Every structure is written in C-alpha cells, then in structure tokens.
C-alpha cells in the first residue's frame, strides 16, 4: 500500500497556509476518505463538508489540484501517483475554515427567482405532462447544488461579478422553470435584467465540471439567451410564437 502526501488549506479568510499530511492509501479510496483518515489520525479539527458520500448531495465540493470536484467521487487512483494532492476550498466564496466555504450567496440567488406558478388542473383533477416534454426539465432537476459550476465560471471566479450574474446553477434553475410545461410565470425580463443572462459568454466551462453531466450551456443557457433575444430584439417573432405556439 502506498503513502501519499496531501497539502491541505488550514485557516480562514484572513489567514492560513497549506499544511502537509502523509497517510496510507488503500484500494478504492476516494479523496474524501483520505480527508477523513487525516481527521482521525493527524488533524481531528480539520473542517470539511460531506453527507452522502455517493455523489448525491453536493456537499463535499473542494478544489483538488486546481480543479473543482466532488471529493467523494474523486478516486485516489485518478490522481497520478507521482503528484501530491493539493486540496483547497472553493475559490469564489469566503472561507469559513479549512475546506469549508460560505456558500450562502447561492441561497440568496435562489430566493430572488420567481417561484413556480402552475396552470389549473385538468377537469379530472390531474396535471398532464408527457415524458418527451419533460426530459429536458428533468435533466436540469438532476442538479445536486454542488456549486462546482459556480466555482469555475470565470464571471464569478475571476471577474467577481457576483452582483451581476446568478451563475450557471441558477440559469438552469431558471430554465427548468421556463421550460416546465405547467408553469405560467414569465421570467424573461428578470433573466435579462436581474439575473444577468448577458454576462455569460458561452465558454462551456460549467458544463465540463458538472458531476451530473447536465449540458448547462447548450441546453439551458443558450435557449434562455435566445428567448431574451426574441423578446427584446425581435418582438414580432416573439408575438408570433406566443400566438401560434
């Protein structure tokens, strides 16, 4: 069994440094297992988040050797043996302690989105939707809110424009509402003016990191941008669509 070296950020927003830890790795281990092992053996107060340990809850996001990843789904054998493993908290958000960052900004974005508003039920009391009409919405609803896409998006990460753009996670949330067959609310003006759809310049980086393989850019952001364009720059086309479906 091999020993591996981990460099882990210890500290908070104001001060801190990378500490080095060496532990034994056994077969099948993921990075989260290694963090837990370090807690037990070397640093009991090392802070990290996790819940499901199966890629389902989106709690355990960190940056591993520079890439935002779920630590519970990153196998140790996917990191070349000659490399150390460097783990730091998600860059765009304030660090609370060690690997834990303050992601409350994301919860605030969600609250700003106009909630689902259903049309009335059919006469027999049912809502009818067909599978082919909801496949796309279900793709978006697979989101586990890991915020890896929020972390990689350069608008948020490098330009620090959090006040201007909700970020990819909430663009798909908006898309899941706008494309919901039962929803009757209109969010297009807000998508342009408040949620900042124009800030995205379609780099696809968010799609590349999504652990749920949601095609964020192509299936959600581009169609939303198109709807905005139709509405604001081609109102005739928009009216036609509204009338003739």
């Amino acid at each position: 069994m091999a020993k591996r070296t981990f460099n882990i950020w210890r500290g908070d927003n104001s001060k801190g440094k990378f500490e080095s830890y060496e532990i034994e790795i056994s077969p099948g281990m993921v990075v989260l297992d290694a963090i837990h092992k370090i807690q037990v053996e070397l640093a009991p107060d090392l802070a990290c988040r996790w819940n499901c340990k199966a890629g389902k809850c989106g709690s355990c996001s960190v940056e591993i050797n520079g890439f935002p990843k779920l630590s519970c789904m990153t196998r140790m054998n996917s990191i070349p043996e000659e490399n150390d493993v460097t783990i730091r908290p998600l860059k765009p958000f304030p660090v609370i302690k060690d690997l834990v960052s303050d992601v409350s900004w994301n919860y605030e974005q969600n609250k700003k989105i106009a909630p689902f508003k259903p049309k009335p039920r059919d006469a027999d009391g049912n809502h009818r939707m067909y599978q082919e009409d909801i496949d796309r919405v279900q793709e978006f609803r697979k989101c586990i809110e890991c915020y890896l896409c929020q972390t990689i998006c350069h608008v948020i990460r490098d330009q620090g424009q959090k006040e201007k753009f909700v970020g990819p996670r909430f663009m798909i949330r908006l898309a899941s509402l706008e494309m919901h067959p039962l929803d009757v609310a209109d969010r297009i003006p807000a998508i342009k003016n408040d949620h900042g759809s124009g800030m995205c310049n379609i780099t696809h980086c968010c799609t590349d990191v999504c652990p749920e393989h949601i095609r964020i850019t192509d299936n959600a952001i581009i169609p939303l941008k198109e709807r905005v364009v139709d509405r604001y720059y081609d109102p005739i086309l928009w009216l036609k669509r509204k009338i003739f479906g």
Partner: protein
Amino acid sequence: MTDFSDIQTIEHDIIIIGAGGAGLRAAIECSAQGKNSGVVCKSLLGKAHTVMAEGGMAASLGNADPRDHWKIHFRDTMRGGKFLNQWRMAEIHAKEAPERVNELEEWGAVFDRTKSGLINQRNFGGHRYPRLAHVGDRTGLELIRTLQDHGIHQGFDVHMECTALTLLKDGDNISGVLAYWRDSGRFVLFKCKAVILATGGAGKAWHVTSNSWEYTGDGLAMGYNAGAELMDIEFVQFHPTGMVWPPSVKGTLVTEGVRGDGGILLNNKNERFMFDYIPEKFAAETADSEEESNRWLNGDTGARRPPELLTRDVVARAITTEVKEGRGSPHGGVFLDIASRVPAELIKKKLPSMYHQFKELAEVDITKEPMEVGPTTHYFMGGLRVDHETQETAVPGLFACGECAAGLHGANRLGGNSLSDLIVFGKLAGTGASQYVDSLSKSLAINQEQVATGIREATSILNRESGKNPYLIHDDLQTVMGNYAGIVRTEDDLKKGLTELARIKKDIEQVKAPGASQFNPGWNEALDLSSLMIVSEAVTMAALERKESRGGHSRLDYPGEDSEGLKYNVIVSKGENGMEVRREPRDTPPQELSRIANASIDDLEAEVVRERNNG
C-alpha cells in the same frame, strides 16, 4: 451561575429540528397555519438525508395499475410491518399519500410520466402493484428540492449548520432549544412554544450503513432526555442491497429499484436462491418459477411477483444465510444482476445514478456485469412514540414526524413508504403543533439552570486536559453494535453488547476534542456520541425484551414469530435510575381495519371493484 445575557436568542412560535422531507413539510404547514416558525438543521439546506432516497414514494394513485386503492396499500403496509404497525397511522398514511404526492406536483415536482401523461409508478418490494411515484433513481432529490424551493417563499426561517443539543422545558412543557452554530461554535438559544423533531434515524451506530454522518439519533436522544418515550426501537432495517466493495463504499445503498425493474439475486453457483426463501405467508402471492417471474416482468398481470421483491427483512436474511453457508461472492456479498435482463440503454435511463455510482466508485459497469451486494444498516422503524393524529409525544409541546417517529412501519418498513410518511405526517405534525400553540394559555420561561448544564457538558469536551479520541470511540461503538446487535441477535450477544456499551459510556465521559469550537468536526463528533450511546443502549435493551423474531428483529435463540409478540410494543423511557424498558399492551385493532388487513387479496380486490362500480 454563568451569565447568559450574551448568548444569542432567537424567538419563534415553533422550532422544527430537521430539514429533510418531514421537517420541511412540517414547516410549510406551520406557515400555512400562520405560525412564525424556524427550521434548524445540521447541514446546509437541501443536503438532509432525504436527498439520498432513490427508488420512490408510495401512494395508491392507481396511474400505473388502476386496481390500486388505499385499502390495498394499507394491507401491504400492515403485512410488511408484520402487523405491529399502529393501525390508525397505517390507515391515515394510505389514505392521504395520494393527495400529498399530487400536491408536490402543484409545487413544481416533475415525476416520471405514464404514456397518458400522469405520474408514473414503479414496482417495489412488498407492494402489490406498481405504486412508487419516482424520478429515475433520484426521487429524494426531487422531493427535497421541491419542498426547499417552495418552502423558501413561505416565510419560515432556516437556521442552517446549527445543531440542537438539548430541549428546554418550563415545568412539563417545551419552552426552547439550546443549539450551537457549526461555523462559529457559538451557542444559540431558541425560545419557542413547541418543537417538532424531524431528525431522522441513527444508522451511524453501525459501521456498514447507508446513512450519513448526520444520522446519530439526536432527536431520539433529545426526546428521550426530555421525557418522551421510544417505541419499537428494536426494529432496525437492514437493507438487503448495499455495496460491499471497495471497502470505502461498503454499505452505500443500491436501490431496490434495481430489483423492481427486473434485477435478480444470484449466489456463486449462479443459483437464483430467493426461490428457496419464500415465507409461507407470502407463498400464495409470490412466483414459484423463473418462468412465472419473467412473465410478471413482461407485464402479465396474472403472474405473481418474483421472490426478489419479498420484503426487505426476508431478502436480507436470505443473503446473510447464503454468505454464511459459503455461497457468497468474492467480497462477502451475493450477485445482483440486471445486465443480463434489461438492455443497457434502458438501465442507464431508469437507474442513472446506480450506473454512475458503480462505474465511478467500484469500476463496475452494471450494464455489463453483475453488482456485488450485501445487507447494510438503513432505517429505524422505531422512534418517538406519538399520537397518530397530532404527532405529539408524551411531552406537551413536543412533536415528532418522519423517520424519528415510530408507529407507521411496525416491525419492517416497505420501500417507498418512508418518503410518503414524511409528507403525510410532516403535514400533520405542522397542524398538531400549530393547534397546540393556539391552545397554550400560559407564558413560558427558559430555565437558566438547564441552559447552563447543556453548555457546561458541551464545552467540557474542549476544555479537558486530555482524553479519548472521539473518532476512535465512535469506531469502537460501531464495532460493538455490529457484533452484538446486528442483523441476527441472541441473548448472550445482546448482554455482552450492554456490557461493552457500559465500558464505552465511560470513554465518552472522558472524550477530548482538540482545537477551538469553530467548525471543529472532532468536537461535533464528540457531541453526537452521547446521542448514539442512548440510541444504542435503547436498541439493545429493547432487542433483549422482544423474545421472538419479527420483521427487522431476528433472534437466533427465538426463531419465528410468536403470537404473544403481537400483544405489545416495547417502550423505552428515562426513569429515575436510568433507562427503563417495558411492554406496552396493544389496543385491540379497529374492527374494519383488521378485516381489511386480514382479507385475502382476491376478496379485497373484488371488494374494491364492487365499491368502484357502486360509487
């Protein structure tokens, strides 16, 4: 006495502890009833255990098979629970689940559809018809996200990453909660008139478990300490199919949906062994040949269900026996094969998260090879004893719902009956607590002495000069529970277990967490240990008391069900001199419900048809 003026104080009418399906549904109801309420949860919003649920939620919508009816759902639930369920709870659950599921759609949930555009339903163990509303194999995510996205606009506050430590009482009544913020490690005092516990189970008392770090039984322990009773706590569900390899994921759940969608269990001789384990009571409703099972899978409504879909207790015991007798897989489980039964594309569509889970964590492609699976600690049937309509415990102002409450599932829970439990009884707890608050005439005070004790106990873990490592104590406790109070039990083992637990209790008194209180997992873990200890003791003592095997509780020294066992529920409560166990006689079942539960399936189906024709 310490001065508390500097402790942050937050006031609500109702505090809901837990933000899973049950807690969020309860909070939505409290808001609907005009109450000012706050949800307190250990993790971030949206990360509670409910998010992990896979297969679906049971409700007799009758979309996939129009023959379904609440009476048949009720009958399945009682039979699955080996008749130890609280009759009225099982009735309310079966009757109200369809409305609660439809309501989720009103709030934005997008379930998989039938061809005619309705909510689709899938087969699951113990359910007569395809009954589980689902979204692929991520139904829990759909449930929690729907409640979360709807809930944030209903006006209740969410206090995230805040752990409740102790319930505070003014005389007999609940008057508040002492808690601490994970990030700062500071204490916070919630003043309130009622508390709803929705804290889930305690699977973390065992090593091999499908549960996350949150499942340390805090709600059970807080309720117990406040004077509420624990019921049926000996019944722990070991889910038959957890991953067994690699070691780091041992216990991670493999949804029953794999078997519902056609997966079969094989031993190392390639035998479909479940045919050898069909209990007499279920023989009339279970296929006795592979040929009949295949017909069922292809939709022949005349064919009976394959034995892989027997209730979880039966399948888990069968796997344990196969492994013990040397017919297991290389890593100590059995094989679960869907690759040879269902086309690869369909597997990826219906079970996407299982596909990824195995591919990424075990390097197994489930569309090409069988999985290796074995039993894993999964669910607490038992919990806080509540009134079936109001969900109130024996403590005035203390309510409970979801997995931490007892009664609906009896000795064994059917898959899919938990998610529906959460929304049905979450709502009722919200109503119950609101009504209680309305009826309360006296004003309540916080007892400073109780707060002081709570804080002293919590901080002593940090302040101690030296002491035991909390992680190692937890590990020790898990080993003890696995060895002595696991899937099969004996009097000797359980007694040994109690002795060992007494030893570990001393260690817990000496536990030391180094570092400061800010986001300190070592300290958090140490604090959870006392809850785990109470629950572990309760399980072991209740298991000793029930001298028969029934559902999730298997005694090697008392094999088989004993009709005496139906006459009581085991109750655990806090007495003058520590934990007390007693047998509480069960009321005679309501006549009509007893008739339905005991009817033959053919008679009941005919009755439902008659009713529909007349109505």
